[in-house]
């Protein structure tokens, strides 16, 4: 790993200024995505700006119809939060299956959302629930946030401070984990929200996406059987040693049905 400057600012303003001040500087949250990449010399940022001392970013608040989770909340914190479990049990369950225990103790919601790994779990919840990504300078709707492979609508140096999840009537997440890496080969988040049924699929494409066909079918009947015969075309899906595009397409159908069966 190349050496770099290291900063631990105590305010959001300073953090943003520090990243803006050095070209290529990066925020460091839990480090569970950034450090593995740096260890392989695949990223060599000249400066890291730790978010660890920023105040107020590690809170979970449930407020009427919204669960607001601070960007620095670890996966473990979300998984074990009684408030989250009560309001959106699917979200707590999703967090409890990210990576492994040690990763969950460090990795953060904000880091996962900013990193936008195509095989990450949280993006499915964000898109499946129609969440809002709150930053130091504004808000992004999940529907227009995930742009492509590791690509989001965040501007350079924009800092995610929280994610607001609207509480759905019911939701569930079904994940088919990569046997070696534990990331999602396919993960399907199904939610019955105030705005209608939403189905978000992670792991299968360049970034998380919704299936209009499944949403339409589930809108007429929220049963696994309603998904019979509905397929997501394999053409644009990821293919790797773990799963071909065709298999992924098949798994999307299976995981979607399992999520529907598990709604609560």
């Amino acid at each position, binding site marked *: 790993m190349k050496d770099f400057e290291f900063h631990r600012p105590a305010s959001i303003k300073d953090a943003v200024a520090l990243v803006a001040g050095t070209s290529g500087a990066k925020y460091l949250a839990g480090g569970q995505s950034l450090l593995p990449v740096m260890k392989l010399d695949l990223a060599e940022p000249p400066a890291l700006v730790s978010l660890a001392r920023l105040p107020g970013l590690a809170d979970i608040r449930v407020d009427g119809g919204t669960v607001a989770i601070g960007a620095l909340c670890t996966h473990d914190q979300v998984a074990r939060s009684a408030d989250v479990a009560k309001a959106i049990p699917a979200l707590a369950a999703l967090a409890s299956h990210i990576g492994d225990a040690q990763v969950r103790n460090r990795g953060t919601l904000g880091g996962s959302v900013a990193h936008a790994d195509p095989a990450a779990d949280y993006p499915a919840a964000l898109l499946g629930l129609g969440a809002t990504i709150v930053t130091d300078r504004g808000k992004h709707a999940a529907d227009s946030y995930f742009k492509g492979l590791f690509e989001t609508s965040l501007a350079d140096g924009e800092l995610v401070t929280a994610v607001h999840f609207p509480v759905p009537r019911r939701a569930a997440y079904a994940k*088919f984990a990569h*046997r*070696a*890496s534990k990331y999602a080969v396919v993960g399907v988040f199904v939610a019955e929200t105030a705005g209608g049924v939403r189905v978000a699929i992670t792991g299968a494409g360049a970034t998380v996406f919704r299936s209009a066909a499944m949403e339409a079918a589930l809108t007429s009947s929220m049963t696994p059987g309603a998904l019979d015969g509905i397929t997501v075309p394999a053409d644009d899906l990821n293919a790797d*040693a*773990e*799963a071909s595009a065709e*298999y992924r397409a098949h798994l999307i159908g*299976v995981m979607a049905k399992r999520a529907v069966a598990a709604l609560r």
Partner: protein
Amino acid sequence: MGNAQGIGAAVKRKEDRRFLVGRGQYTDDVTLPNQSFAVFVRSPYGHAKVNGVDAKAALAAPDVLAVLTGADVAADGLGGIPCGWLVKSKDGSNMVEPPHPALAQGKVRHVGDPVAMVIASTKAAAKAAAALVEVDYEPLPAAGLLANAIAPGAPQVWDEAPGNVCFDWHIGDPATTDAAFAKAAHVVELDLVNNRVAPNPMEPRAANGSFDGANDQYTLYTTSQNPHLTRLLLAAFTLKVPEHKLRVIAPDVGGGFGSKIFHYAEELLVLWASRRVGRPVKWTSDRMEAFLTDAHGRDHISNAKLALDADGKFLGLRVHTYAAMGAYLSTFAPAVPTYLYATLLSGPYDFPAIYAEVKAIFTNTVAVDAYRGAGRPEATYLLERLVEQAARQLGMDRVELRRKNLIRADQFPYQTQVALQYDIGDYQATLDLALAQGDYAGYPARAAASKANGKLRGFGMSTYIEACGIAPSALVGALGARAGLYEAANVRVHPTGSVTVFTGTHSHGQGHETTFAQLIADRLGVSTDQVEVVHGDTDRIPFGMGTYGSRSASVGGSAIVKALDKIVDKGKKIAAHLLEASVADVEFKDGQYRVVGTDRVKAFGEVAFAAYVPHNYPIETVEPGLEESAFYDPKNFTFPGGTHLVEVEIDPETGVVEVASVTIADDVGVIINPMIVDGQAHGGLAQGIGQALLEEAVYDAEGQLTNGTYMGYCMPRAADLPNFKVGNHVTACTHNPLGVKGVGEVGAIGVPPAVINAVLDALAPLGVTDISMPATPEKVWRAIQAARAGKGA
């Protein structure tokens, strides 16, 4: 008193404490004064010409001490890495044995082949400088896969090996085998692939070499299963300095599974580099480097045919196997698919005729050599898939077909058609035990319950045999081994009666510090706390051949027993003197010398004390001191065997295979410590299940390893495995003093075909007839799809 900790007792391990408090000392934990660090520049190509190495920028980088290349290796006259076994082809010609320079000279032949070595005063500096070494490669066509290395017109790994053939070997009798097939009522045939796996001990390899110029003395710390063999090869072939100037220490070693048997180039290079730079040089592999440079295991393509009579009795077996060697011949590589594989093809069965041909093939990959089981898992997989297929094809019960063909207990010693003579066993007994412990009778109810849950349940089994403690030296010498396969021990009784045992075997998880102490406790009646077992240091131990092939108890333990015999005998003479009796009248039992039939006794400790304080002593006839050495050369292999049962549950929608239960019944001979024996079985099972369901080192045609990290290569985790039911039925080995056989590999040998047989059993109702290892979810799902489509069509 001693026997509470003697043979058969589940004594807790003496070595655990240091590991549990973080005070184990592994090679990378050793940092010497003035330590420097090495990083290797390795080929990114499967096959390429090296037109030049430009080290200028690297040499100019901060803290860099040296950059060494193949030219320096040649100039200093270092020897190539030798192969320890010469196999001859059918026609009597020697195998093709290409050169293996420690750093590439002219060509690289696999990804990871070392081209240059950068030494710097910090690891970070060495790594940074290594990135500055510029190598001019000219990529060549590569034979990355065994399947394409054997194809006509395949790229040549070595000019001197046409068709990439290293040797073309055979065993058995083709004529009687042909005759057997000619009269067969049924012939069952399978094409099988034994998947290439990476051994992955959790501790990556490391080596720390230091040269002391003042005394002309070399010391190597290395992650080795057999430091004496490493010293022998360094002395005789590679570094070429005499043994007395060379000390090899294998301290705590974090697992080996075969991969740390072999002499690797890095061991030579750190010693040599230390001489060049005048500082100790340490290299520690990272995990990606381990995937690319540790010798892999398996990688066979076979065709097998089984001839049966109308009643299902086996008449003959014919096997043709291609075995990958990789680009260079690793220490034991040629022996694995020959003397450790084809000689095991009779399995536990009574076969009147067998003929096997094995072609060893060079590929542009890292070497393939012994990995837990080494040859025996490949033989077992082939046989047990074939037997299962026969049962299905003939419509016979899988248990009854095996029962009919197992060698009966009254047939021992049993001479196979492939050279081995099994001394003893009771295969029916382990079969019965496994079926009882695994509640075979209750299987239909479990299958029905799975079905009710939407899952497909399958039952699979294997009855297997293996061979441990490869021996005797004279025989293996005749078969091409370039080393002996005996073991050495030294037992030093201290004046107060405590004991230090120096063993030539090496413990890297097997618990020798405990089991060998139990041998002493059992024999001398001292407590295991009074015994220290020393291993892994060529300066402290007379000699040794190390630990592999489950040889430590049967060969190393027997050497200790021989040394103990001498100790007890000498003690008898001393005791007789002290007791004023004749030697013939003195017996040794429960830690005491006693004049037979009297209550006149001398405790072992008193005798030991007299040996060192010989005031009242038979000094004319007996030397003072109580220390004995012994070498033990076994008369034969030992032959553990047993039955493994596996039940799987398959999710037909996703193809995910879950291992629902594993029940095994083994005969590993006399058990010294049942806790450790069970633990060895568990570990082997995990690796065997890993091979069957999860693991495969995947090269592409160009020789790129496509999944050489834990992100891609699927290691078995806790959640992938069930608890294991382990049972034992003991028949004592007839030709070693302990009656032990070996347990290190049984799990990895017996279980893979049981897993695959279970998967095929589960899928049989859908019409699936074949699946290869590892049976990944997608593979299973595709097999189901294909079968459904086939049925529909």
